[in-house]
């Protein structure tokens, strides 16, 4: 199985090049909105990509880093990192040159080569603390193929006449028809769909059980010694800076999917950092063992998400790609996993008042929504390879592919037909 992986590059922008880079990014943004193909699309391995300009100042105007403005690139791609970097350096050379010549230390034209580009890009690589893929193991090629197959069968069902046919007869007709269609040759091979790893979960439970006394003490310390010192943002949604929200909304709801980019500042002290790292490990374990079928903490709309620590663990980036609107997404977060969200994010500054690390916090809906917007930053360029597919569609399509050539009993065949 080919895995999807995240790449995050954080590169300082050359002094004086900020405006040029911004203009270039805006140009690319417009092209993508209009649907003009970009170089990197030819790789056929990138599910999502985004570029943001990371300011050294935070939302309050306080300086958080002395590096200056940085260009952050992120991609969700198929295969291994080395190959991905090679691809970018060779097949998207012009694109990379245009963008990174605005950044510090980029090789001058005479010294640009696939190798020098790759070395340059690798230099700015930052490791993710955690990474979530909604449909693990499904490559971009597979997602596209399976959607083509689904559309083909849908049309076949729609145009046929099925009166007095049993579900198994219909399933067989579809099978025969697809078999006769050369381009779906690949579909005969079923794919492995990851399931919950109960052994891993049991092991995780065991570890938690052993650690439980320590966790309880830890949470009590946070509740009695750290939380009283917290300073929540205290704004309601209507009080968040208007221009800021406008800028974010400008790039939202253009399609049925959206992006979310947050830059969070850690609360001071080792204890908060350790708490976050512990929870990241926990999240990683859950993502690997439990959240394997399109839901992150119960939220059924996320294609990819990642958490990345930067600036010597002083700040954290959170990126996600999701179906539907911001209001729905944030609402889902509160409704489905307010506690998990609170546990992780409350280690960052100005989060709504929490109790015992996991309680209150995000459940204070108005303040939480305002806080989310406050720490969200505009994404300069966002690319999605399949804006017309929801994560549920992607997963459903794989089930269709796998069940197509299986021998199904009556119930299963009916279930198969209901997938259309």
């Amino acid at each position: 199985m080919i895995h999807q992986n995240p790449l995050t590059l954080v590169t300082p922008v050359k002094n004086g090049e900020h405006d040029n880079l911004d203009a270039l990014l805006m140009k690319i943004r417009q092209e993508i909105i209009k649907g003009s193909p970009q170089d990197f699309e030819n790789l056929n391995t990138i599910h999502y990509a985004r570029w943001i300009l990371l300011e050294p100042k935070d939302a309050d105007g306080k300086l958080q880093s002395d590096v200056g403005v940085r260009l952050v690139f992120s991609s969700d791609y198929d295969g291994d990192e080395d190959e991905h970097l090679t691809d970018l350096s060779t097949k998207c050379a012009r694109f990379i040159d245009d963008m990174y010549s605005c950044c510090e230390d980029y090789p001058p034209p005479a010294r640009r080569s696939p190798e020098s580009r790759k070395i340059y890009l690798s230099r700015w690589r930052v490791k993710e603390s955690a990474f979530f893929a909604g449909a693990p193991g499904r490559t971009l090629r597979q997602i596209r193929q399976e959607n083509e197959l689904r559309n083909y069968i849908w049309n076949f069902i729609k145009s046929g006449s099925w009166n007095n046919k049993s579900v198994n007869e219909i399933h067989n007709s579809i099978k025969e028809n697809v078999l006769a269609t050369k381009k779906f040759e690949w579909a005969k091979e079923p794919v492995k769909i990851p399931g919950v790893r109960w052994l891993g979960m049991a092991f995780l439970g065991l570890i938690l059980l052993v650690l439980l006394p320590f966790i309880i003490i830890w949470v009590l310390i946070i509740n009695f010694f750290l939380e009283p010192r917290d300073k929540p943002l205290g704004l309601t949604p209507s009080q968040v800076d208007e221009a800021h929200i406008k800028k974010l909304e400008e790039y939202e709801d253009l399609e049925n999917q959206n992006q979310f980019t947050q830059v969070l500042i850690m609360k001071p002290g080792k204890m908060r950092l350790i708490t976050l790292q512990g929870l990241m490990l926990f999240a990683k374990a859950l993502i690997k063992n439990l959240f394997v079928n399109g839901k992150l903490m119960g939220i059924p709309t996320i294609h990819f998400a990642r958490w990345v620590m930067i600036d010597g663990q002083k700040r954290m980036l959170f990126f996600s790609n999701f179906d539907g609107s911001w209001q729905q997404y944030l609402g889902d977060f509160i409704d489905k996993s307010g506690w998990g969200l609170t546990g992780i994010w409350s280690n960052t500054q100005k989060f709504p008042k929490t109790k015992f690390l996991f309680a209150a916090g995000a459940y204070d809906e108005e303040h939480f929504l305002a806080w989310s917007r406050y720490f969200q930053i505009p994404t300069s360029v966002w690319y999605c390879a399949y804006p017309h597919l929801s994560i549920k569609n992607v997963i459903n399509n794989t089930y269709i592919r796998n069940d197509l050539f299986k021998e199904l009993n009556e119930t299963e065949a009916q279930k198969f037909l209901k997938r259309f």
Partner: protein
Amino acid sequence: MELELSDIQGYVVRGYKYMMYSRYVMLTVTEPALAKKFIKTNVPDVTNVTHHPTTHCLNFAFTSLGLKSLGMSRENLDNFTREFREGMTTEHRQRLLGDFDSSAPGNWRWGGPNNEEVHILLMVFGANKEIAFNYADQLKQQYIVSGLKEVCCIDGQTLPYNKEHFGFRDGISQPTIKGTGRSGPPEHDINAGEFLMGYKNEYNVYPDTPVLATVQGDTTLLPFDASGTGKRDLGRNGSYMVMRQLQQDVDLYWNFMNEATKNEDGSVNIEASIKLAAQMMGRWPSGAPIVKFPGKDPGGISDDDDFLYMEHDPDGSKCPFGSHLRRTNPRDNFEDNGVKESLRLTRRHRIMRRARLYGDTYVGSPLNHSPDGEVGLVFTCFNADISRQFEFIQYTWANYPKFKQLYNDPDPICGVRENPAPGTEQNFTIPCSPVNRYVTGLKKFVHTKGGAYFFFPSITTINYLTTI
């Protein structure tokens, strides 16, 4: 929690069922001092929840431009929610609400960027035509000399049995507001804070409310805010009101149903046509829910609102997942949540609907679908959080074609795009055995002709506004 019923304008809580006629007058303020005097004179006649007038009712609503025109300071206005302040016609909101093509705000009759500004809405109701319009005329005599200019006026009415122009009974399912003394089934009994500011909502917190930032007018009139910040509260006992004038293309609607279900010889199959229309709606023309009567309309007049989906129709074979009713109020079937969780979550996305019809008093059916002139309804709803309630329902549940497991299915009544992007399908999926049935190429039957977000203040706040 006791509600201060005599301070709440009546229309949030009651639908004025016996007021068969209405006139909505949109006004623009030309001389604020006179306008305030006009309002002040009429405050005693404003209908509150405890009033039960038999002849006529009066309510006031204000746009953010209206509050500004009366002299509200920027700082005070800034504490109203952003949705209200920005209004319905920003580019982003246009995308959320799906107001494109001929429904684009640029083509609106009122409330759009090419129309005169709407500041104040006068909502006049009467038990019959004569009372309603006489009362409206009386008020007109006053406002035309009170620094107020009429921008637009829509006469509305309630058709017999509360039918709308497509031919269906409307407004059957409504939430009841806890504390108003009215009660309904527990799943419809919703915390007051979902509709009124100053009370706790379904998250058990106080909704965002416009508190006073700078001293202006007679602030002693205003109560302090419920969450205890010690600030004076303009929002308490008030609500936000969404209003959209929706034109209904009755001809296109029934032609579409007839065409999709016609007999082999091309003739209209009345029964099948009505059935398809009912599947798209989620109720039969009589109002009977199709989840309870999947075969055919039991006839008569039904107020039946006592139903859930999961027990009798988990796979949507009676009431399709894509139907207007099941999408916009999924009851116990919210996405793929369990029954209990669904019921809990659905409560956070309810609105109090009010509709008044305009145009020819016409009730459509498969063989009668040519009303005289334009017909439609003035859709009105109340909520405390426009973004989480009205806009969520319109975007996430109605317009969004990926609802549940669907691929290309917008709400067939109110979510279809007039000119979808090339290659985009708009379908309605009817779960059937052995294979689903698909109605393709949906047409837009409902067009937006105007709209605005209003503040629907308490009577105290209306009084206060006359002092700024």
